[in-house]
Each structure stands twice: as structure tokens, then as C-alpha cells.
């Protein structure tokens, strides 16, 4: 019997609920998939073998579990340092730093635009003094560190290596990742200083610097997470992320680097949303498509330059403020999709994150969720356990095909930088976000506790609050740094940064010197503003 025979003769006879059977991204799916739906290549894929659909390593979690990496950052550097130590005490090996809005946008804590924002969404960092305190008592060669920062990433990386120098840790021993994905900022997260072209130049400076001096560091984490949070579909997340990655590779190759030299140090960051099979298929398709594109377009020959290694985080936008305990279940399902999708590291959201920064107790449940998946559920025993599932293979093929069509359209527009200038990905995402909200409002998509199964609300859980004194203290701290440093040395160092920005020489060496001379995030960002110009939101609706 063929699939069509079965559908026409048997399936039609049985009742079907009067709903659209579609994913959270509004992709309609068949009631069943069969061998005929699976492409020929998918039947001969192996973990650790090109195109890595089934996983980048042969033994996957039998060899090594994913890194449990909880994102943390709030208040002052001392507050976050304490949270880091708490997480390490709970068995976490990798650190992941969230910075506050002023740090992310290149303003010091004493700037008028920083008012009300200092230490609220992450840790406040204005100068090397803060980064030193952030990693106090943590030897940088003993951990891997992820830093979620983009338009000021060059400054933060300079500060990190400066702290390594102070600790006597050689740069070659520094392992970690800096997000540094500016293109997705223009598309989705929207923290920027200067326009796309100079932003990409700074990213490439960092790729070049890391390729030569920080062999264990990931210079860019090409991020779909924020694209999805901004409201994209799964296919858009996949396509725009890989298109951003292609743009960086292209720019680095034009700089004269070989893809095999820096490709192994590119990493990725995907979202894990509610739709279980769609998410697993997305991760599998991402690996297959990236490996193929790196070989086709750039002639990559080093397997590591073709392997898509990824961090993933459960979807913040899927959590509900209503009945927040339900979020524990959502996070567990999303995290399971990530594990079955073969991620290399994982952040699980805390149940109270729609209300405020997570409390210590909520973070603990999130970490335990990962430990239960890793050590109790048994899913780590088999590599790519869903490989060969007709449905998962067919969805993998479909996401790959649809993402490739988007990428080819972006090529026609002249590449991702051009597409961003035209507002193309931004508008696609805004459309998808609006469609989804309408579906929720009309109850065509269910959000438990929000548009169905509502209850009179219980009291909100105890929230982590950041006192306003943090702002006063932090502003005073950066003023003190500026007052007490050697002013001449700081000015000279800042001038060197400006010269490099203007001449096109790599910014990183003068930045390292500048942060050691205690030049601040705001001062260096001002140089970028003056030399490269400020980007403003085009405010497309």
C-alpha cells in the first residue's frame, strides 16, 4: 500500500478534529510520513560524517554530555560573581554572562541614557575594574566562558584577555564564546552602535584576532535565538541565521583568511521552541545545510570548518506569566528537543523569567531539568535516536529546502547586509509575529493558561529585584575609575583605537591596550560613534 492509498482508503474514513494540524510556525503537516517522504541522502547519513545531520561527533552524548550553561548576570559584578559561584557549586562547568542594557549599547553607568537600566537585565560593566571583579576567584583557564554581547563585544573581549594577563593565564588557554553576531542585532535583538558595514568589519577584526591569538575561543556565535524570540518561524530562524553566518565567512575570506583557518571557531546558537518535531528537524537541517554551504561556497576541506556546533536555549517567548509553574513543563519539552536535536550546550529557562530575572530557586529547577534529561531519562544512550523516523527525516528535508530557498532569495538581494538595509528579514519576522499573535487572540493556537484553561491568578512568585542603589554605586565606581587613572595614558590609548578604526588596521591590539589603561566601554563606543556614525532604528512596522 502506498501512502496515498492509505490516506485515501483508510485515513479518510476516520474522524479528524476540526483544527488545522500545523506547527507553532504555522507549517501544516501530513497525518503520517512514510519511506517515500524521506530523501535518498538521508538514508545514508552517519553521526560525525559529512553533512553531520545526525550529529557532529560519532559518539555524541556517550562521549561527552552537552555543557549545561546557565546564562546569568545582574546587578554589580560582585552580585554576578556570587551567582557564578553558586552555579558552579551546582555542577555547572561553563559560565555564561548577561550584561545590562547600557553595557550592551555602549554607555557607561553614569551616562544619562543609562538611567534606570543599570544592572537590571544583566551585569553592569563599564571598565576593566568590573570584569576583574566579575571573575574574581575564578581562574580563567579552569572554565569556559560565554559572553552575550555584540556591538561592544570587541571591548569586552579585550577586557577578558586583559584579566587573563593579570591572572597569568596564557591566551592560548582561554576557552569560550563571545556572541558578537551583529547582523542578528539589526534583524532582531536591536542593540547596536554603528551601521551594518562597519559593524561587520569589527566582527571580522575579532575573527582574525581570535584565529591568530585565541585558538580555543569562538569569535562569533551566529544566533538564531533572538530572531525566533522576535517572532520568526522556525524556517526563518534557520535561514536568517545561516545567511548571517555566510555573510561573516564571506567577509573574513575577503579579508584574506582561509575558511579552514577560522571556520572551526564559528559556533551557533538556536532557540528551542514548543513544537517538538519541528525543533529537532530544524537542528538536524541546520547541520546538513551549513556543512553543504561551507563546502559548496567556500571550498572548506577541514571537517571542523563544516561542522555546525551549537548552543541552544529554551524559548523565553513561549513562557507565560500566568500559572508560571507550567513553564517547568514547557522548558523540559523544549530542552528534550534540543538534546534529541544534538546540541553541544544548553540553557534551560527558569519558570519566573517572564516576570523578572530568575530567582535562585527557579534557576535550580532549570539546572535540575537538564540533569534529569542527562542522567535519568536514558535519551543520551543512543546517538540521534530519531534518525530514520519518517516524520523527522521528512521534516528535516523540508526545513532544509525551505531555508535554502530563503537563503537564495537573500543572495538575489545582494547578501545579508544588503537585505538588512532593505529591511527584508525585519519585515518577514514582523509579519510572522503578527500572524502568530492573531492566531493566539482568535484561539487558533493554544497557550495554556493564557487563552485556554485560565484560572484566577495566584500570587506572583517572589521576584529577584535589583535595587536602584546599584545604579548609584556603579555610576560612582566608573567616575572614580576615570578620576584616578593615568589620564594621559588613557587618552593616548584611546587615540590609538581611533587611528585603528580610521585606518582599517585590526582594532583588537589597541583595544587591549586601551582597556588596560582603564578606558571605559562608553569612551570606546564614543570613538566608534564618531568614526563610523550611529545607526538609528528605521522603525519599520
Amino acid at each position, binding site marked *: 500500500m502506498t501512502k496515498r492509498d492509505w490516506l485515501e482508503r483508510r485515513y479518510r474514513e476516520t474522524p479528524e478534529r476540526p483544527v488545522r494540524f500545523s506547527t507553532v510556525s504555522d507549517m501544516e503537516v501530513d497525518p503520517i510520513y512514510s519511506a517515500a517522504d524521506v530523501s535518498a541522502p538521508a538514508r545514508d547519513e552517519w553521526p560525525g560524517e559529512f553533512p553531520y545531520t545526525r550529529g557532529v561527533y560519532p559518539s555524541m552524548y556517550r562521549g561527552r554530555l552537552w555543557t549545561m550553561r546557565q546564562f546569568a548576570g545582574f546587578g554589580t559584578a560582585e552580585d554576578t560573581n556570587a551567582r557564578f559561584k553558586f552555579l558552579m557549586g551546582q555542577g555547572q562547568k561553563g559560565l555564561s554572562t548577561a550584561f545590562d542594557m547600557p553595557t550592551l549599547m555602549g554607555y557607561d553607568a553614569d551616562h544619562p541614557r543609562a538611567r534606570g537600566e543599570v544592572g*537590571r537585565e544583566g551585569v553592569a560593566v563599564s571598565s576593566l575594574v568590573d570584569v576583574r571583579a566579575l571573575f574574581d576567584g575564578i581562574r580563567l583557564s579552569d572554565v569556559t566562558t560565554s559572553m552575550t554581547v555584540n556591538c561592544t563585544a570587541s571591548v569586552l573581549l579585550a577586557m577578558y584577555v586583559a584579566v587573563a594577563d593579570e591572572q597569568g593565564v596564557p591566551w592560548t588557554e582561554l576557552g569560550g564564546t563571545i556572541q558578537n553576531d551583529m547582523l542578528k542585532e539589526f534583524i532582531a535583538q536591536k542593540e547596536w552602535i554603528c551601521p551594518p558595514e562597519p559593524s561587520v568589519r569589527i566582527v571580522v577584526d575579532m575573527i582574525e584576532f581570535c584565529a591568530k591569538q585565541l585558538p580555543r575561543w569562538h569569535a562569533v556565535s551566529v544566533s538564531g535565538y533572538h530572531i525566533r524570540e522576535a517572532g520568526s518561524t522556525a524556517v526563518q530562524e534557520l535561514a536568517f541565521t545561516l545567511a548571517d553566518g555566510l555573510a561573516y565567512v564571506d567577509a573574513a575570506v575577503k579579508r584574506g583568511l582561509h575558511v579552514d583557518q577560522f571556520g572551526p571557531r564559528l559556533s551557533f546558537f538556536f532557540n528551542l521552541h514548543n513544537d517538538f518535531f519541528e525543533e529537532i528537524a530544524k537542528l538536524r537541517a541546520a547541520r546538513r545545510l551549513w556543512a553543504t554551504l561551507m563546502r559548496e561556497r567556500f571550498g572548506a576541506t577541514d571537517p571542523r570548518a563544516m561542522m555546525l556546533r551549537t548552543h541552544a536555549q529554551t524559548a523565553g517567548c513561549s513562557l507565560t506569566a500566568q500559572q508560571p509553574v507550567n513553564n517547568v513543563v514547557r522548558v523540559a519539552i523544549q530542552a528534550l528537543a534540543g538534546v534529541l536535536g544534538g546540541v553541544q550546550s544548553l540553557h534551560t529557562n527558569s519558570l519566573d523569567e517572564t516576570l523578572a530575572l530568575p530567582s535562585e530557586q527557579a534557576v535550580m529547577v532549570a539546572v535540575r531539568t537538564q540533569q534529569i534529561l542527562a542522567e535519568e531519562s536514558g535519551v543520551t544512550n543512543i546517538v540521534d535516536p530519531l534518525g530514520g523516523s519518517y516524520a523527522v527525516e521528512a521534516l528535516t528535508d523540508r526545513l532544509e529546502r525551505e531555508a535554502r530557498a530563503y537563503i537564495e532569495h537573500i543572495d538575489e538581494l545582494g547578501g545579508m547586509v544588503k537585505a538588512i538595509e532593505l529591511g527584508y528579514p525585519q519585515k518577514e519576522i514582523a509579519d510572522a509575529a503578527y500572524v502568530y499573535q492573531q492566531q493566539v487572540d482568535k484561539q487558533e493556537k493554544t497557550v495554556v493558561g493564557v487563552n485556554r484553561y485560565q484560572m484566577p491568578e495566584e500570587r*506572583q512568585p517572589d521576584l529577584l529585584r535589583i535595587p536602584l542603589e546599584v545604579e548609584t554605586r556603579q555610576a560612582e565606581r566608573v567616575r572614580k575609575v576615570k578620576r584616578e587613572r593615568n589620564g594621559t595614558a588613557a587618552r593616548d590609548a584611546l587615540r590609538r583605537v581611533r587611528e585603528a578604526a580610521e585606518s582599517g588596521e585590526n582594532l583588537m591590539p589597541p583595544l587591549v591596550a586601551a582597556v588596560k589603561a582603564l578606558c571605559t566601554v562608553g569612551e570606546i563606543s564614543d570613538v566608534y560613534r564618531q568614526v563610523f556614525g550611529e545607526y538609528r*532604528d528605521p522603525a519599520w512596522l
Partner: protein
Amino acid sequence: MALNPRPLRILIAKPGLDGHDRGAKVIARALRDAGMEVIYTGLHQTPEMVAEAAIQEDVDAIGLSLLSGAHLTLFPAVLAELRQRGGGDIPVFGGGIIPDEDRPELERAGVAAMFTPGASTQEIVDWIRTTIRPRVA
């Protein structure tokens, strides 16, 4: 009284430094689809910029969207800037990540309504329709 009142003119604004504009854009579109005239400021506005835009565009109400936790500083700052410019009578509503326990303080500061995660766009449209009237110049 006009038989065909002009459509309500609403300013949707993003004060502060956070880049989360998904909600602001969805609301802006929903209000527009409901027949209102919508002006969207774009991201990263200072309280001064928001108040200035509201006065210049002669809007009937202002919707502020904020997801960075800075609402207790920035919402009152917008209201103060409005008063300074003679726009203290323009109703201001807000949305975003606003814990319940912060509502009383914002209400005292003069924020007319707050819509937090889970609010439907229809709820916001209905509130505007029943509460906001075109301002008489």
C-alpha cells in the same frame, strides 16, 4: 460634535535601551488594523524624545513599551517631560514586563493602564476605544 470624528492618533513608543520591539510592533499593527492612526517612534528613545514626538504629532494617547525593568524610572520620566511641554493631559498607557507589585506606583505616577504578557490585542483596542477621546486642540 462631529459626525465623522477623525481616527484616534496613537503614539507607540519604546523608551530606554532594550531592543525588544516585537510587542510594540504587534500592538502598532493591531491598532492600525482597528482603524487608528499609529505613529511608531522606533527603538532607544529618551523620555524627552517621546514627549517631543507626542506634542509634535498631536497624539490622543501614548503607549509605552518596555521590557528592560526600567519602567519605574522611565515611565514617570516620560510623564514629567510631557507635563513640562504642556502635554500633561495626554493619556499614557504601558506594556511589557511589569511585575504586579509595581502597578500601584505606576498608577500613582499617572499611567492610565498597563497591559502585561497574556493581554490580547483586542483587549488593548477595546480599552483605547472606550477610554481615549480625540483631543480638542
